[in-house]
């Protein structure tokens, strides 16, 4: 869990979402619908985006999980976080943790995504406020920044 091992006893019917929010106090993971339709509960599990409301806690055993709390720090924001700020790409902010994770996971696997690929990567997270364009612009910009730093 964000680089740290945890050993927990859980109910067989507890969801990963419940464990993250209630037992580990990671409130950046949201429950927007509980049915896998909105994506605000998104976490990265073994390198893939998943809806944590659809994962039973027991299914997450031995898996590497990243939540928004594990991305960037106040002193050193992740390029996607910085870009979302620069582009004013958050309004209510409810989808933003999931958008950051979707952007980060994309850039971890594909450092030079097209706009179409960015759209696809965030397509599992619904945003009611921004209309998505600034989020896409931001992730595109973050990719350039990461590439710039490396070259």
């Amino acid at each position, binding site marked *: 869990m964000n680089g740290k091992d945890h050993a927990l006893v859980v109910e067989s019917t507890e969801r990963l979402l419940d464990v993250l929010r209630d037992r580990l106090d990671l409130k950046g993971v949201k429950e927007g619908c509980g049915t896998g339709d909105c994506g605000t509960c998104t976490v990265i599990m073994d390198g893939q985006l998943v809806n944590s409301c*659809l994962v039973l806690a027991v299914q997450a055993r031995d898996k590497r999980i990243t939540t928004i709390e594990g991305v960037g720090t106040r002193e050193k924001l992740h390029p996607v976080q910085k870009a979302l700020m620069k582009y004013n790409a958050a309004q209510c902010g409810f989808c933003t943790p999931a958008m950051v994770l979707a952007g980060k996971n994309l850039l971890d696997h594909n450092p030079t995504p097209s706009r179409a690929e960015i759209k696809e990567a965030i397509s599992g997270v619904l945003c009611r406020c921004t209309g998505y364009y600034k989020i896409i612009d931001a992730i595109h910009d973050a990719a350039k920044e990461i590439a710039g730093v490396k070259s």
Partner: protein
Amino acid sequence: MSVRNLVDLSGLSELRYVKREDGEIKIGALTTIADLEKQVDNSAWGKFLNDAITKFGSPNIRSLATVGGNICAASSSEDLIPVFLALDAKVKTLGKNGTREIPLQEFLAAKRKTALHADEILAEVSFPEPSARAACSFQKLGMRNILIIALVSVAVFLETDESRSKIVQARVALNRFKSKIPQRVESVEKELVGQTLSEWTIKSAVERLGEELALTSDYRASAEYRTEAVKVLLRRALVACQQKILGK
């Protein structure tokens, strides 16, 4: 959620595979859609399933959803069921008394009910490996472009002769029937077999589909709307198959 005994199958990695064997493509029931997506561009079977895979849910959903789960949900809206029907698939179950092989259409008993016995799991779905002159297209309509439940969808499988223009085999499968069981539409298939894959043939197949189609009316959409919409989807699927067969 309240259950007496819950057994989580998701760790059974031996049911997560795609293989070509004995002239068939065999897919383990616990193969996720994301697993398929990873292989779609560099496999013999990829082009027959790529429509359905890329339209499935969202990336988040594809990480978790499994082929077996989609089939066993059997609620008449699943994406893979019409596709596998069009590919003439069968399923293999695994239980205390061994394995059974059942044609997919027979496996679908009623809404949310399959032919699985209480002590069985779905182990595999398989279909004959299509020829190089065949194509499969899947078209789906929903309220958005992605993360949609199908209002109606159609899967078309076409195989042509050496000229790549005469249809020798056609399978057309829809969901959202009144009966709640996805099925092939034989009248449309008959309209296609033996014909040249042309605008005229596509038009007459689409007209034929509109006749005697008993789709469901529910809070998502009326039967009339679904019937009109699925005719458009059929056209798109036939055109897509044509383009795939001609290598476009």
